[in-house]
């Protein structure tokens, strides 16, 4: 009898050859006869009112497209609807789109866009955290009582900076009129977000808008909600001009005007009993939302929920605000609020331990969450938690304790840091069941080929391979018999956005159910279609108003250990090694998961010490790959990753979420290593040489 291979055993990714050879048709590779080019005219000021617009003489065949051309609503449909398609009267950030110039010759289009003269009445911009646009709050137990009986309290504040997704392929769409409607092909994570936003702005019938995913050259959240903005602008232009239009951002435009990770400030206050046990935490997470809220409220929520990370604290009071400022709107980025909060709590728990004179490692282990404990929102950790074993393994492979001891010698300027953390898998709270309502289809044709019909996007993380592998394995057919084309909303149902580490657990889970049904009902040579709809596990209860209950159906877990050396002369940080252990249930393809682990950690560590972005009076100071530094091949440490087997009963083959998990622990791990190397508490990231110098000079 043939023994079936374990699903985790890696296979060759199905789309690598076309990408390596340069054949894969990314959005900017698409060319259509008679195609026009579009360029955005933007606000040069951070806040003001448009008084007058003077257009240059437009040659024949050249057009402008602005708010007056919008058929229905000048707002981009997102979770919170405040982001205009085009600024109409008021501008609220430098770079805010006011109109498009569209025409056949790209250089002429650029020159015309530059020649548009706009008079503004300037207003005082706001950059401080003073206008809160979203307030959230939840509590657990009785935090006031905890603070009343506290033997001591400890208080710190933490700060994080911007992070730019820096996908190597900038934002872009190609659009064309089709069947009285519009087709948009683009670099996107969420075909149905784009489609629904365009329908809403255009007031069109459902079948008039078609959205197709092109191969995506990196996204990391940056192509989650933002493409809805450019898609709506392009659709307005298509309606007016009725010709194919290419609308691709150049790097500087992309970096200066698209969403980024929210800068944050987190206040933490802990109440300790006489034995130095944390009995309560009060926390406030403040995010810089930029000019429009968009989905910042949901980012805030995920951040707040991570307040106690992988520790159990019985009494909590957690509040959060999204502040509106006259800067580029911030939005989705791998981790989605969690990296800010996990940085804060991981540093805080070390700082508490240090302040009360305890060994941080022992202190943290004492507070570590166990199966059956209550979550921050009073839900329950139902599934087995193997974090303690993972920490033991991380200690062993990194020689953590010996190094930590050796590096206590301040002259070494070396340090080792360890973070451990969780990440909630899928949408927060009741999002999956109330908002997304994912649907998937498996269609078998009369030749018995099986077609996967879902809206999930492969942006490098591998579902083109893993979905086919999963379905083929369950059907017991060769992978070649299963197809999964780039999603096209004309053919695929709305299986939800490609976000929140939900792709394998939720969409893959539905596909697994569909494959099992198809196998049972299989009739050779006949067309068959199986549809499956998401259903929340019945034991999951969540109250959105009080933010109480099970915020997530499942959690993935991780441990990161990072070793650094800091230059005594320049304070430059060299990241020497990283060891990582992950519990993501079950890997559907081990090498693909390890690829996520490598890449996520490179981004997470760099967030902690390398990637600097800031603005001056609303103008971003880093606008290209020269100014904004991401890790190169000489910056990344030697990495060793291990995946645990801890199958989650409701995931396909036991799989949970992966993508974001691998990023969220990097920053605190590297910051803790730097903290040890320099003998100073790190409370702000990125920990650049300049900020290290300040810490050392100021004690």
């Amino acid at each position: 009898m043939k023994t079936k291979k374990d699903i985790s055993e890696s296979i060759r990714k199905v789309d690598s050859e076309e990408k390596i050879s340069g054949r894969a048709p990314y959005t900017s590779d698409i060319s259509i006869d008679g195609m026009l080019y579009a360029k955005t005219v933007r606000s040069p000021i951070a806040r003001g009112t448009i008084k007058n617009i003077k257009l240059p003489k437009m040659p024949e065949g050249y057009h402008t497209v602005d708010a007056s051309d919008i058929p229905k609503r000048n707002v981009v449909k997102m979770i919170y609807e405040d982001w205009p398609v085009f600024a109409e009267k008021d501008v609220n950030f430098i770079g805010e789109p006011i109109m498009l110039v569209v025409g056949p010759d790209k250089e002429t289009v650029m020159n015309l866009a530059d020649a548009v003269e706009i008079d503004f009445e300037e207003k005082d911009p706001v950059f401080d955290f003073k206008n809160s646009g979203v307030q959230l709050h939840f509590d657990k137990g009785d935090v006031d009582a905890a603070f009343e009986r506290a033997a001591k309290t400890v208080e710190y504040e933490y700060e994080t900076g911007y992070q730019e997704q820096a996908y190597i392929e900038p934002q872009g769409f190609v659009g064309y009129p089709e069947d009285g409607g519009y087709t948009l092909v683009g670099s996107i994570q969420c075909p149905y977000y784009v489609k629904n936003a365009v329908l809403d702005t255009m007031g069109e019938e459902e079948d008039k808008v078609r959205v197709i995913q092109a191969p995506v050259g990196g996204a990391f959240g940056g192509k989650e909600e933002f493409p809805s903005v450019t898609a709506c602008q392009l659709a307005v232009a298509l309606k007016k001009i009725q010709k194919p239009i290419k609308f691709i951002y150049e790097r500087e435009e992309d970096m200066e005007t698209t969403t980024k990770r929210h800068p944050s400030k987190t206040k933490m206050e802990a109440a300790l009993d006489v034995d130095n046990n944390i009995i309560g935490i009060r926390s406030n997470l403040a995010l810089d939302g930029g000019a429009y809220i968009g989905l910042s409220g949901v980012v805030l929520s995920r951040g707040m929920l991570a307040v106690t990370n992988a520790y159990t604290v019985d009494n909590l009071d957690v509040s959060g605000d999204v502040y509106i400022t006259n800067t580029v709107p911030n939005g989705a980025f791998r981790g989605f609020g969690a990296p800010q909060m996990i940085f804060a709590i991981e540093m805080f728990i070390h700082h508490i331990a240090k302040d009360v004179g305890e060994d941080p490692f022992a202190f943290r282990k004492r507070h570590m969450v166990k199966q059956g404990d209550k979550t921050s929102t009073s839900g329950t950790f139902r599934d087995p938690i193997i974090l303690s074993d993972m920490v033991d393994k991380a200690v062993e492979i990194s020689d953590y304790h010996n190094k930590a001891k050796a590096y206590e010698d301040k002259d070494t300027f070396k340090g080792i840091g360890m973070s451990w953390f969780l990440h909630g898998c899928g949408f927060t709270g009741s999002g999956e069941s109330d908002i997304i309502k994912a649907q998937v289809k498996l269609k078998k044709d009369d030749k018995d080929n099986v077609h996967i019909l879902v809206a999930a996007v492969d942006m490098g993380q591998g579902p083109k391979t893993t979905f086919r592998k999963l379905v083929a394995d369950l059907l017991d057919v060769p992978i070649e018999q299963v197809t999964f084309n780039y999603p096209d909303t004309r053919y695929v149902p709305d299986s939800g956005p490609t976000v929140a580490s939900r792709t394998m657990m939720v969409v893959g889970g539905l596909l697994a159910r569909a494959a099992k049904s198809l196998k049972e009902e299989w009739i050779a040579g006949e067309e068959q279609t199986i549809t499956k709809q998401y259903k929340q596990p019945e034991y999951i209860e969540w109250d959105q108003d009080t933010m109480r209950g099970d915020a997530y159906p499942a959690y993935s877990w991780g441990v990161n250990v990072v070793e650094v050396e800091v230059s005594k002369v320049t304070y430059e940080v060299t990241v020497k090694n990283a060891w990582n252990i992950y519990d993501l249930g079950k890997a559907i393809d081990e090498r693909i998961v390890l690829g996520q682990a490598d890449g996520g950690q490179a981004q997470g560590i760099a967030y902690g010490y390398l990637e600097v972005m800031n603005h001056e009076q609303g103008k971003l100071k880093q606008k290209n790959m020269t100014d904004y530094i991401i890790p190169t091949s000489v910056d990344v440490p030697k990495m060793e990753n291990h995946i645990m087997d801890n199958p989650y009963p409701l995931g396909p083959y036991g799989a949970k979420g992966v993508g974001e998990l691998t990023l969220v622990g990097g920053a605190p791990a590297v910051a803790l290593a730097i903290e040890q190397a320099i003998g100073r508490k790190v409370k702000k990231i990125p920990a650049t040489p300049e900020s290290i110098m300040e810490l050392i000079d100021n004690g």
Partner: protein
Amino acid sequence: MAKVTFTLNGETVTVDEPLNMRFLDILRKELGLTGSKEGCGEGECGACSVFMDGWLVNSCLLPLASVEGRDIMTIEGYRETKRYKVLENAFVEEGAVQCGICTPGMVMAAENLLNRNPSPSEEEIRIALAGNLCRCTGYEMIFKAVKRASKEGEGLW
């Protein structure tokens, strides 16, 4: 306007375009060769890498005038070689491809390294690829792929 003649993937090509036009645009728009990608447009990311007289260059920084009389090889030419096949297989086997937008340029940089140093150390690989940015992989599997190609392509470089 002067015409510019050069060798492209083994064939003689003449183009009649402004001399200051970026060579990357000539390739992608005028000649339809879209394997060279634009990531940054300023020579930082390496996604547009091509060979000019055997030297690895960023085609986004190259004005058309400077290719006159030169021998250019892009990914479309390179992918027809035996060396490419070895690198392609190594990149697939090691999982070195995620979103793939940097990959054609990365493969050109790997060729450039192996051509000069057929058995590079990891340190030499890291240095040789430092001009090519990848945001997905953390580079680890790319290092492994280059090592594998170096081993499996023995004698080709």
